[in-house]
């Protein structure tokens, strides 16, 4: 149960972060807070910031939202004793980690700039995966 709470908190953080970056992509928020560095801008303005017509951050919104819903559902009495939600969390976060690896590869070897918001998201999804995995081993 504890791991589902951790994943829910991480997913909510990732969701907020992704919403912020998505709003930025559509010009709905001010300048991106990046500690004075231009690297966030470089990543967000690159051609890789859009995938199949949608901003990459938009996929984060969807992914984290699903993760949050599953984690919260797993905390309800109906699902609390079931291993199903934890397995699903492992699967979803593993997919997120794989996508993050691809995005980090793009940043390092194609865009040549690292966005600290993307690093934050990468840390969140890796931690969510580790927490889910730990939960699966315990159950």
């Amino acid at each position, binding site marked *: 149960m504890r791991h589902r*709470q951790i994943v829910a908190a991480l997913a909510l953080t990732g969701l907020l972060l992704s919403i912020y970056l998505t709003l930025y992509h559509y010009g709905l928020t001010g300048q991106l807070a990046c500690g004075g560095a231009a690297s966030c801008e470089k990543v967000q303005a*690159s*051609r890789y910031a859009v995938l199949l017509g949608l901003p990459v951050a938009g996929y984060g919104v969807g992914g984290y939202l699903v993760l949050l819903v599953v984690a919260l559902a797993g905390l309800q009495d109906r699902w609390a004793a079931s291993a199903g939600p934890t397995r699903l969390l492992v699967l979803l976060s593993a997919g997120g980690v794989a996508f993050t690896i691809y995005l980090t590869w793009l940043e390092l070897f194609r865009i040549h700039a690292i966005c600290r918001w993307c690093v934050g998201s990468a840390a969140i999804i890796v931690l969510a995966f580790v927490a889910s995995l730990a939960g699966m081993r315990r159950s």
Partner: protein
Amino acid sequence: MAGKSLTPFYIGLGVLAVAGGAYIVAGTARRGPPLTAETTAPLASGPRGITLGSDSAPVEIMEFSDFECPWCGQFANLQMPDVRQRLLPTGKVRWRFVNFPLVIHQKSPYAHLAAACANEQGRFWEMHDLIYQHQEEWVSSRNPLRMLGDLAAQAGVDKARYESCVSERRSWGRVLADKALGDSLGINGTPTFYINGRLWGGNQSPTVDQLIRIVDSLAAGAPAPARTRASAPAPH
């Protein structure tokens, strides 16, 4: 039972949601002034972009660029002087700068408007260079219009005419016409280059040495180089 023991967790989650939401809302409140890449105006007629080099050159390089984009600044500051020194004097190439302010940049539209207004007075390229050389300053400025006005004065424009152009947004339709061309080509990042109608497919902006090789081969009537992909934008 589970609901009761989870109460502190839900409260913590709620606090996180409210704090994060407040940060995002504060960010939207920090939006720039009302001119945006989506501000509408009648599209200007005539050719798209601003050219440099011979009108009869056999090769045209079209650059879709955003004044606030760091990559574009890097290209303008590092490669463009070489383009002018080594490529344009050959007479084989014409450079076409096409305005493409990205919607993610709040201050970029002002720079594009400022450059278009400088262009009214034949000072586009001077303004182009100054905007990119001082990119970090006007982008981080709370009042970019004032700083862009100072740059326009340095570029040698008549200040009164420039100011009226900016305040009336007289040349904005020209910027939008350029952007419409980029949109029609599906461009979503900057800088994007087309060389004689073919998209430059490299992951990085081309270097001058690469451009020279491509221009030489195209001018000699050789087949399209490997790093360009077929496409056919029309500059008007």
